[in-house]
């Protein structure tokens, strides 16, 4: 019997640090485990006894790459508990800041973290030596996303202007104008990015995922819509716990989320696209068609194209919001504390992010639960590895190791944001 064990100790270019273990016997992959070296930070524990108003700023610190997603899930869950709806221009501004995060985070992943895999570089710094113009375009595009967040949020990372009920200060119309100029250029770069990524060489590998994402009511989803799946799930965020569960399994280093009775599922750009492609803007739809995406894409390596399409959509949508923007009379709606439980799921760049808070009558958090996208996707990432790696076993170790890393990076796992990831002794197996 031949035993082949490939270990990658530090997985570069995923946010945070992880390790991966693949064990093969007699030419077939037996198991694939993604291990995360992320010390626990206990957010759900120290959220207890904080005021509901503090959750957006505190949970933002779970992840510096997608703080807006944490803030949005927190404010929507709190508003759900307090029984208020934030509509009109304030709702539009929330979509706008989310556009900024998608542009920034997706572009970071596409250019700095993912494209080097397809073009044979160790990272963007090395890639920049041969393709300075392309890396420059990526940085400019990313900056357009950052500009939205900085203007609406006060700064790029951990924005300070988001609050339960709305914003501390709503922007004036004229403040948004320079942003529109930058976004028009960004839209061209985004279109060029779709075409650029569509030309990469992709391994011919598909998987039969159950896609899970919000389904917007005629709009591509950021923070609102029902939780839907490609196999017929259709529920509100309040029903999440009835249909999904997280398990703390001994062989793994992380809490793994599953659909009860069915198993692993995938959230993120592939899932959003599969469930909402028809709601993309005409320009983004056309670009997706030209890139050969079809109505759904089940090849995780091609997720880089779907991310580019979403960046294009986010530029388009941001421009629409700015063009239609009317200054709200007040920057936030009134809120009254009450004892209740609130639920929300929103679409972080890398996948669905679920928050649930139980509040006391005086507005304190009695219980908090947060399910980040990476712990939802981790079982699917491991399935990808198990499914694909058998075909690569004859490659030299280095090449095989690199393919496995790529397989993980396909899903842009933000390891810091998986609040539950922890260090664990690994069973090295046979």
């Amino acid at each position, binding site marked *: 019997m031949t035993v082949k064990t490939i270990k990658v100790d530090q*997985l*570069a*270019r995923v946010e*945070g*640090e992880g390790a991966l273990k693949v064990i093969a016997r007699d030419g077939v992959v037996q198991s694939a485990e993604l291990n995360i070296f992320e*010390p*626990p*930070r*206990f*957010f*759900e*524990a*120290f959220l207890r006894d*904080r*005021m509901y108003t*503090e959750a957006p*700023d*505190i949970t933002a*610190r779970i*992840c*510096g*790459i997608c*703080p807006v997603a944490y803030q949005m899930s927190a404010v929507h869950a709190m508003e759900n508990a307090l029984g208020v709806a934030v509509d009109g221009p304030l709702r539009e501004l929330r979509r706008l800041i989310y556009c900024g995060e998608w542009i920034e985070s997706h572009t*970071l992943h596409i250019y*700095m*973290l993912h494209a080097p895999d397809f073009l044979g570089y*160790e*990272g963007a*710094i*090395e890639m*920049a030596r041969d393709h*300075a113009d392309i*890396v*420059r375009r990526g*940085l*400019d595009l*990313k900056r357009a996303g*950052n500009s939205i967040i900085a203007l609406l949020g*006060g*700064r*790029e*990372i*951990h924005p*300070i*202007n988001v609050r339960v009920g709305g914003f*501390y*200060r709503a922007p004036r119309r004229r403040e948004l104008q320079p942003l529109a100029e930058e976004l028009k250029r960004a839209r061209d770069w985004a279109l060029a990015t779709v075409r650029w990524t569509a030309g990469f060489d992709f391994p011919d590998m598909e998987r039969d995922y159950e896609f899970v994402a919000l389904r917007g009511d005629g709009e591509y989803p950021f923070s609102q819509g029902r939780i839907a799946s490609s196999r017929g799930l259709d529920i509100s965020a309040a029903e999440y716990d009835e249909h999904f569960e997280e*398990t*703390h399994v*001994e062989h793994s280093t992380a*809490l793994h989320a599953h659909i009860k009775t069915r198993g692993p599922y995938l959230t993120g750009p592939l899932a959003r696209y599969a469930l909402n492609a028809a709601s993309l803007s005409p320009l983004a739809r056309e670009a997706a068609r030209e890139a050969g995406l079809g109505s759904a894409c089940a090849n995780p390596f091609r997720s880089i194209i779907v991310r580019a399409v979403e960046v294009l959509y986010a530029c388009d949508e941001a421009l629409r919001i700015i063009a239609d923007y009317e200054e709200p009379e007040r920057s936030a709606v009134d809120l009254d504390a009450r004892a209740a439980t609130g639920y929300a799921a929103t679409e972080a760049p890398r996948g669905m992010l679920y928050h649930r808070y139980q509040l006391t009558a005086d507005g304190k958090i009695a219980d908090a639960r947060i399910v980040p996208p990476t712990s939802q996707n981790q079982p699917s990432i491991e399935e990808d590895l198990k499914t694909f790696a058998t075909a690569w076993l004859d490659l030299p170790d280095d090449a095989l190791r690199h393919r496995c*890393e790529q397989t993980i990076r396909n899903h842009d796992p*933000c390891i*810091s*944001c998986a*609040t*539950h990831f*922890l*260090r*664990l002794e690994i069973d090295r197996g046979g």
Partner: protein
Amino acid sequence: MERARRPKLAVWKFASCDGCQLSLLDCEDELLEVAGEIEIAHFLEATRATIQGPYDLSLVEGSVTTAHDAARIQEIRKQSRFLVTIGACATAGGIQALRNFADVREYTAIVYARPDYIQTLATSTAIGDHVKVDFELRGCPISTRQLIEVISAFLAGRKPQTPPHSVCVECKIAGNLCVMVGHGTPCLGPVTHAGCGAVCPAYNRGCYGCYGPMETPNTPSLSAGLSKLGMDDDALKRIYRTFNANADAFRKESERHDR
């Protein structure tokens, strides 16, 4: 022709959200320039390529929360000529230092189904509690402008210019209306270290102290003012207990209201 040896930069992560090292990737223009002058020897978020130490400049993000990390920072210190902490986690222990005020076993049981799988220390501590730190950058997150200043100062062999005054002074410089005087909004600006450019007051919001305490802040006097604005002990305790909860001045002041 051989180029002169470029200084080697390393970026290290401990318990954190990655936001501070992301600030380095956010220095879009400067990054390409900086990349020409220094050799990025260890920055896993940006590249798989790693180069052996020793390193000329180590930027450290995150706090120490595990026994393994307590040992790792010793090793990094040995390999680094200069070591700079970036952000509130590395400089003060971060938001995860809230465990220092609680029982970590209880925390573990709240979050995890199988607490016995978890290995963690009872406290989250700053890098400076473990090794000598050559310079500390404040903020949750740090400002990219200050980060560039630190790297440039290091390249030029001079001391970084990061003003030690309060956020209040930055408000005056920016011409902001004082939110406390103007709207009666509670604000930690008078005791908080400068660096952000007084972002929150510019957005009609009080400062929540993400840059941590300035040197010798008068926290009792501020707390007296805040209680006149209607904050009770519990609210005062919470306002000092966020991203810099374990910084000395904020910890002591929060403890005065913990009853």
